[in-house]
């Protein structure tokens, strides 16, 4: 039997120690992704260090910013009054993901860490560099309707599938990480996920044994005008074909700051500085939105089956910006 050791942890320090000490140990949070992958034999840890009892589930305001515990549940995070009030984009993004049951189990840390939904990654009989480096990429010349149009390499064309992180990119969040030496380091979320390059087995910059303890959200002025738009194959319980986290800060009809992040198009949420900059100082209207959308997608390099993501991405950006302008979440343009 594929047995593994189960180690319940009560303190962050001991959890970090346990995982650091064993190269094939993993943290267990909600288990909604890890356990699935273990059943498929994709993940094969020989030890699970259960971190659900760690005191890392608080959501608290610290000065101007908000700190969200890595072990806070997705549901509790989305519905927290401070999140709803100051970061409605995050609420919307979380609630666009998975199902109520899953969100009740899923933690914020686990959500950031969730692995790709590439079909080849899930099928251990198929080549996949991410699962087994050196075996090749099944999707590159295979079925790649749900795969990347940006930032991929010939080693891997997978996407990062999560919704929450796409909003976090727009909100300039950062990830607070406990290192094995007991100290914390803070990584801007934009630098947290990586591109596949030559090492697609590495999804992000977290080192083995490092524990995500919190996600910090700085104060911003996007709450009034933001929108998370998700295009998927059915109305619920499906990953994004393309999603957009859009946020605007305006004075009058003039755009002061903008955020445009695409989900479902790359190995990480895809934020376009160039498109954002193109909006700054411009009037908030459909024409400027269109120009920004063109810029955001101009470097897209679709694969055989995902060319639609380019046009879909553009339209989704325009629509998301329009809806953001119209008051955002809950209001349809």
């Amino acid at each position, binding site marked *: *039997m*594929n047995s593994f050791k189960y180690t319940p942890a009560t303190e962050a320090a001991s959890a970090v120690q346990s995982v650091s000490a064993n190269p094939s140990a993993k943290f267990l949070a909600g288990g909604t992704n890890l356990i699935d992958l273990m059943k498929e*034999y994709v993940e094969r840890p020989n030890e699970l260090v259960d971190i659900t009892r760690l005191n890392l589930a608080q959501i608290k305001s610290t000065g101007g910013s908000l700190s969200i515990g890595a072990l806070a549940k997705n549901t509790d995070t989305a519905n927290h009054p401070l999140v709803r009030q100051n970061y409605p984009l995050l609420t919307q993004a979380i609630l666009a993901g998975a199902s109520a049951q899953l969100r009740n189990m899923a933690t914020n840390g686990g959500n950031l860490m969730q692995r790709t*939904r590439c*079909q*080849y990654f*899930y*099928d251990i*009989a*198929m080549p996949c560099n991410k699962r087994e480096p050196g075996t090749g990429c*099944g999707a590159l*010349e*295979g*079925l790649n309707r749900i795969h990347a149009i940006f930032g991929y390499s010939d080693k891997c064309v997978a996407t990062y599938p999560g919704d929450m992180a796409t909003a976090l990119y727009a909100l300039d969040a950062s990830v607070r990480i406990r290192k094995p030496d007991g100290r914390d380091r803070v990584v801007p979320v934009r630098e947290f996920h990586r591109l596949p390059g030559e090492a697609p087995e590495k999804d992000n910059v977290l080192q083995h044994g490092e524990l995500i303890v919190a996600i910090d959200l700085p104060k911003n002025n996007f709450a009034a005008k933001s929108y998370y738009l998700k*295009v998927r*194959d*059915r*109305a*619920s*319980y*499906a990953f994004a*074909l393309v999603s957009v986290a859009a946020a605007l800060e305006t004075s009058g009809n003039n755009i002061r700051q903008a955020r445009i992040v695409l989900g479902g198009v790359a190995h990480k949420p895809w934020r376009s500085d160039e498109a954002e900059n193109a909006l700054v100082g411009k009037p908030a209207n459909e024409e400027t939105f269109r120009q920004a959308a063109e810029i955001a997608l101009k470097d897209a390099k679709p694969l055989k089956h995902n060319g*639609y993501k380019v*046009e*879909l991405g553009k*339209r*989704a950006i*325009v*629509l998301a910006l329009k809806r953001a302008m119209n008051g955002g979440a809950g209001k*349809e*343009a």
Partner: protein
Amino acid sequence: MARYIGKEMSRVDGVAKVTGKAKYAAEFQVPGIAYGFIVQSTIGKGTIKSIDTAEASRAPGVIRIYTHENAPKPAPPKSAELKPQTNSQERDKSFRALQTNRIFFNMQPIALVLAETFEQARYAARLVKASYAEEKPMTDMEAELKSAFMPNPQRAPKPRGNPSEAFQTAAVKIEAEYTIPVEHHNPMEPHGAIAFWENEKLTIFDKTQGVYTVRTHLATSFGIPEENVSVVSPFVGGAFGSSLRPNYYPWLASMAAREIKRPVKLVYTRQQMYTGHGYRPQTWQKVALGADKNGKLTSIIHEAANNSSTFEDYSDNTTNFPRSIYACPNVDSPQKIVKTDMSTPCAMRAPGAVSGMFALECAMDELAYSLKIDPLELRLINYADVHPDSGKAFSSKALRECYHLAAEKFGWKNRKLEPRSMRDGRMLVGWGMATGVWGAFQQPASVKITLRADGTAYVASGTSDIGPGTYTVITLIAAEYLGLPAEKVKFELGDTKFPRAPVQGGSFTTASVGTAVYESAQNIRQKLLDLAGKEANSPLKAAKIDEVEFADGKLQIKNEPARSISVSEIMRRNNLTELTDIHEAKPSPERNKYATGAHGAQFVEVKVDPDLGIVRVTRVVEATACGRIMNPKTSHSQEIGGIVWGIGMALTEATEIDHRYGRIMNPNLQHYHVPVNADVLEVETMFVEEDDKIVNPLGIKGMGELGMVGIPAAIANAVFHATGKRVRDLPITPEKLL
């Protein structure tokens, strides 16, 4: 006055199901059980050069491992019953596991690991290593359309009139191709069995749509008498056609149990279901319609091809139902198959009909636009009052009433013909309609009824209830015709110890088994009347069977409750505690004088996001004419379920194959998208009842498949109306509308 028939009855097995008391095949407790796990091939075509089980054999808990090298061979099939349902073969060539080193399809079983626990078996299964001489598989049917052939040309229906000439000279023509991908049933319950032997007697708990079919399959395979095989299947968590034929696992489990002399439990994983049973084949169709300027059809040429395996010729009969829908003098409907390196397809809810009607009813919509005639009007212009092939009258056909009723409820008259002419804010609104058709089949079926002096009855039949509510409807019919309260009737099914009944398929169970119950209850009435009428002062003296009825535990002269004797009294006087009747009901020859069928009309509203191509089915109104409705509650559920299936087929469902490997890449419920609750909005189902004593005495027709038949076409037509875009390739995913 009917007491039960036509009135809503909740499921008699509902409480058992929601409390977990209902036992499904793999849930039976059998002591000393060993667990099986199937190892599947990782190539799509070729031969196994070697298979190494050494390491797996040493894994903890492993009892034995079977491969093609050491698995016993089943006896060759003898019985005609093993023939696939709808194809031409003379002999059963269905796939049997572990019989050869040849690989016919990817994810083919190549080994069976038996261990003390499921986890041990699964773990060891991953240690079995095969090496292959690989060949290139061919799974892309459309790339090989040129190789399509008619499996059984002599049995194919002949063309009617002269379709190609009529098409050439038609005033208005349309011609288009339609494609449907492979789809899988995805019932909730995975297929599985527990098998054990006592001497030469085999017992198997199996998930099946027909216990007798599994019995014949196993008896022949092991060369033992049928009586030595008992198949038990009281509950089935959905099957939709995937358990009509015995799949490969019942034999595998039984073989292993016999060899290791222990009970064996073998259950497919979700992934294994994708090749462990059949699927709706990939279908290519071309429809050419010719009409005069008034919309009268002059020619229908409906070609279809579906994929099959290399070892069986499965035809989905795609064009069979569509060819009898419209009154058109010139029709051809050739049906072909293409061999692929895949497992064999099988019937999947409304097989053939839903695929064929998707193409035909979309083509009719296209024709309506060429003619600028309302699509409903076009159907009425071409309405078939008699069966267009045979010229026979229909035993009943209230399709016209369905069209009118559903159109009225839907508000169809407010539709603007022009595409993109209706909006709801940003959303493009589209209204589409289509026709549904299915048979009114009946098969020979037997029941046993025991009426007891204590006022209870026991009814049994070897039929199956895969979810439509057979337990309930048969209880209800028995209660009606035995004159007992439904609570006093106990009905059992799903066991070869009960009288023979056909598989649950083709939507013929209620018509077949219900008729048997009705007739058997009549036999019992006759027996009691004979006993009661013997006595000199009997109030029923000289009464004829048709003059008496059961009511409230009494046998009485109809409408004269004063002239009655209680059933228990009759039994007591004759020293009986119970009376039993075993009866087989057969379809009446009268049926042959008529054309029979069940019909329906579907009207659908969609809202399409003009930017994102997302389609929402916001409203469905369906009117169905399928004889007399026994239990409206479960019947509506069937139609609603059919509509949900139609939504899945139209918008989300597709089995994706990587043709390089011939491998299914989405064999799970995260990547294969069935509709979820949020995809199902307003749905209204209605019945137009037909009084049809010709199909069978109770006037029952099938409905389980009918409800989905027109839905994919109606949705595609609504999408066209909303967007002006004709999508002829299912499913209609967002990118097809950008």
